[in-house]
């Protein structure tokens, strides 16, 4: 049974179809990459999957449950979370503060207890801080955990945004262009992190432009063009697909990174 199954997914804005009649699925444990020219609808797809947009038609089934039309926070609670292309983080807080907020959805403490500072409230807070520390170590930011997010390098910010997503204990992690704005060396570190994420059992879906990364770590690749799915297969299959090559105008075969 697929972890995520998308059928007939369509999103129209006025007369324009950003995403049209998409069908695909992600199996548990695999890494699926989504590629395509700019404006092909990749980020729109993520927005649809995570509830930020409501589909015009189609269904999204996650973990055997129909999540079409649910609000974003509910979808996250069910185990699917995303990062943002613009690397959203809480700029004014420290790295630790950031990830603690990521843990907030996992603590069930009512208003009264929060205010009164009951032992259970304090325990929950302590647990959140501990778990946050673990996650920060996992992504390799423990030496910067008290640094204000504002001052981090772009690569550290990407790690932080991934840490935030991991804090929600997802089953499926959607990464929107995690390698944008980082150099080759840093990209290696990122690939290694994604590998470790997969090893602890989290499935990953990636939007990326950097072909070196996509080709080397993906189990399967989907190619979007003008909102439609024009190819779905292993990296070799996709690399040799005529429609794909046409869509990129021969560009991507030559693209190095």
């Amino acid at each position, binding site marked *: 049974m697929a972890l995520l199954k998308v059928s007939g997914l369509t999103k129209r*804005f*006025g007369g324009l179809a950003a995403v049209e009649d998409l069908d695909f699925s992600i199996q548990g444990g695999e890494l699926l990459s989504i590629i395509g020219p700019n404006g092909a609808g990749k980020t729109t797809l993520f*927005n649809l999957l995570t509830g*930020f*947009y*409501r589909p015009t038609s189609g269904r999204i089934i996650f973990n055997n449950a129909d999540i079409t039309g649910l609000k974003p926070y509910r979808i996250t609670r069910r185990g699917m979370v995303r990062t*943002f292309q613009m690397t*959203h983080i809480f700029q004014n807080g420290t790295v630790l503060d950031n990830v603690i907020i990521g843990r907030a959805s996992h603590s069930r403490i009512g208003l009264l207890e929060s205010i009164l500072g009951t032992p259970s409230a304090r325990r929950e807070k302590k647990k959140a801080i501990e778990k946050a520390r673990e996650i920060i170590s996992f992504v390799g930011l423990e030496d910067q955990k008290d640094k204000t997010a504002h001052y981090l390098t772009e690569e550290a910010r990407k790690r932080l945004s991934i840490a935030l997503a991991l804090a929600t204990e997802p089953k499926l992690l959607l990464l929107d262009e995690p390698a944008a704005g980082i150099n080759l060396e840093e990209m290696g570190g990122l690939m290694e992190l994604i590998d470790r994420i997969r090893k602890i059992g989290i499935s990953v879906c990636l939007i990326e432009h950097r072909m070196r990364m996509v080709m080397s770590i993906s189990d399967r690749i989907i190619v979007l063009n003008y909102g439609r799915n024009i190819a779905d297969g292993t990296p070799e299959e996709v690399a040799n697909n005529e429609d794909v090559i046409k869509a990129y105008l021969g560009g991507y075969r030559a693209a190095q990174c």
Partner: protein
Amino acid sequence: MVGAYFGFYMVMSLAMNYWLALILATVALGFIGLLLFRFVFYPMRDAPEVNLFVAAMALLMILEGAALYFFGTETKWFVVPFSRKVLTFGDLSLPVQRVIVILGTLVVMTFLQLFIKKTSIGATLEATAQQREGAMLCGIKVSRVSALAFMIGTGLAGIAGVLIGPAVLLEPTMGMGPLLVAFSAIVFGGMGNIPGAILGAFILGLVESLASGYISATYSLTFVFGIMILMLLFRPKGLLGKETWRP
């Protein structure tokens, strides 16, 4: 409000011709808009959005405070040569001032539409509104364009004030009512699109007048507000609202 008081002062205290006062008020208000832009809103352009609204609020306080101080709390009556005149069509009597307001609005809206659609400056305005960075890349001086947009905004408000002034009583908080109705209209009709705003304005304006006449004049504003709240509860997008862009 400022426009109305400005016109009032010109006509009543300086005995100026009404139409001249109208033109002068518009220019003066446009100028005030420019000053505001230059000294308040442009320096704050990088601040969090919320701060800009607080600045607008501070501005409201300053303007109303100034009006309060210089003109006092008693309502003023803006008297103009044709204030008392009324046009009659059989059973229907229309105060001349109101006709002027309607005609004036139509004239201004037409001019505005022509300006935006037909002139190159208008096109520049639209372009900048839609895609700021793209406009910058084309060599458009965004700050100048924004300043212009601001001035047009305040200038229009000034015209509205001077037009409506003789038809109603002047008092420092007179801007609130129209603001509220306008806002309710936008929410009701659907945010993010002009047809929605016009439809909303039309419907709610009608509601307000009918409520004023048949139910109660004092609560007419409450009625309008209440309807807007109902719309929010059941269909936050409004009547013609389009989906808002998120992340």
